[in-house]
């Protein structure tokens, strides 16, 4: 029983970190039809900016804020100067954002040094609780809670507020949203900034979880983010959460029971979804002009 609980907590924590990364990706992908391969770069910049802010101020909360602000600012610059000229052209988007990913990754080495940085969990989140035979690592529970809180906030915003309605409408039919008087380009920019901030937050939260940060981690996690977006369905926030949990749990259980398959399990899941439901498990319906 304790093994099961621990595997579930591990899987959920990993899933939540991937969810935070994928949530921004799915919004950017779904609303803006932009393939942003630089998302991992925003993730790693969030990790470094957040952790260095944390080290300087000795406040983990200030570190989180630092990561979010860095992500949003980088998102603003990326959308304005990199993405805007390539709207509507997927090939150019892939090339230019892959290039940006490499630039962001190398800039990390220039600014923060080429070596990995060890990260300590803040004292109040370090250690674990023992409930019977079950050991619950505090930081993992913290990540799970943060993940659900952010999901709740975004679900509320998307379902219950006007701005959420506008985003959901824009995801489904950009032309019609504009014809109703919505300045969709401005919405794009805000969504991009929010997506980038979520990636940066994910990077910051990942740092104490993995214990070390390094420039190349962005690309590794971005691939997981893309897998989750494909499984969950483009533009679907709930789909991303469920797919991220699925990927997290599958990874956690496979790593224990069938370690040889643990690296391949995400690809297998994605392949199954692509064969039987290529639009993803929870894809939003789109109605296009004929």
């Amino acid at each position, binding site marked *: 029983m304790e093994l099961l609980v621990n595997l579930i907590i591990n899987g959920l924590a990993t899933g939540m970190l991937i969810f935070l990364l994928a949530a921004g990706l799915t919004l950017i992908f779904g609303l803006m039809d932009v393939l942003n391969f630089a998302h991992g770069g925003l993730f790693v910049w969030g990790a470094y900016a957040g952790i260095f802010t944390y080290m300087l101020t000795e406040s983990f909360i200030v570190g989180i804020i630092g990561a979010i602000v860095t992500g949003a600012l980088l998102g603003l610059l990326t959308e304005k100067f990199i993405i805007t000229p390539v709207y509507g052209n997927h090939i150019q988007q892939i090339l230019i954002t892959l290039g940006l990913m490499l630039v962001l990754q190398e800039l990390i080495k220039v600014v923060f040094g080429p070596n990995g940085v060890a990260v300590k969990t803040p004292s109040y989140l370090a250690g674990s609780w023992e409930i019977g035979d079950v050991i619950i690592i505090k930081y993992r529970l913290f990540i799970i809670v943060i993940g659900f809180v952010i999901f709740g906030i975004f679900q509320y915003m998307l379902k219950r507020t006007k701005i959420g309605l506008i985003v959901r409408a824009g995801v489904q039919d950009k032309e019609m949203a504009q014809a109703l008087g919505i300045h969709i380009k401005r919405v794009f920019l805000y969504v991009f900034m929010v997506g980038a901030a979520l990636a940066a937050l994910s990077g910051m939260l990942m740092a104490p979880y993995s214990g070390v940060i390094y420039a190349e981690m962005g690309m590794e996690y971005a691939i997981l983010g893309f897998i989750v977006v494909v499984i969950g369905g483009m533009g679907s926030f709930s789909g991303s959460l469920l797919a991220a949990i699925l990927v997290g749990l599958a990874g956690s259980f496979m790593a224990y029971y069938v370690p040889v398959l643990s690296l391949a399990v995400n690809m297998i899941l994605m392949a199954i979804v692509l064969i039987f439901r290529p639009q993803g498990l929870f894809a939003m319906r789109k*109605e296009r002009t004929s």
Partner: protein
Amino acid sequence: MTTLLTLNEVHTHIGQYHILQGVNFEAKEGQVTVLLGRNGAGKTTTLKTIMGLTPATKGDIAFRSQSIKKSPTYKVAKLGIGYVPENQGIFADLTVEENMKVAMRKEDTATLERQQYVLELFPDLKKFWKKAGGHLSGGQKQMLSMARAFINDSQLILIDEPSKGLAPIVVEKVMEAIVEMKKKTSIVLVEQNFIMASRIGDTYTLIDDGRTVNSGNMQDLIYDEELKCKYLGIG
């Protein structure tokens, strides 16, 4: 009668294709102006060009004497032009209520009164208020699209083929609704169904191969067998 919209020698290119090659017409306040022509003549592109969705490459478009040729779509809409596209443009995952809400630019008394008015005009929308737009029938989607275009005190509404794909009884309802809406706003209507167009239109513009070939009062066209035969294939 005040002229609301003027198109003067409008040309539009989509990619390498020269779709509109000189469209001219005026839409007057309080009237229904019908754009007629065969399939592929350029009627839908004309509406899209007015909205800025396929921007004009030559000529001018003026709304209340103000040029909107270079205005982005959202600004054209904010000036007071509503748009009901051929595919209705319903946000399938949003409920009827949410579709209406997303269209509202203000939530003041006047807007809520207009909402009340359209719900009386289209009682089905009230009945399916919490239903997802994607689950509505074709007729209900058409009604929702028209209601959405009307909600913001639009001075002019562009409606593209409202009868397309609908059962005759639903077409009748849609037509009655347009006649009712005409009392409160002006309309530019694209319609293939000549019987419907002739019953509700005040003026017409014939478009053929992307060009305006004839304009005038609808009553004159009804009795002009030669023109109907040449450009609409009727008679």
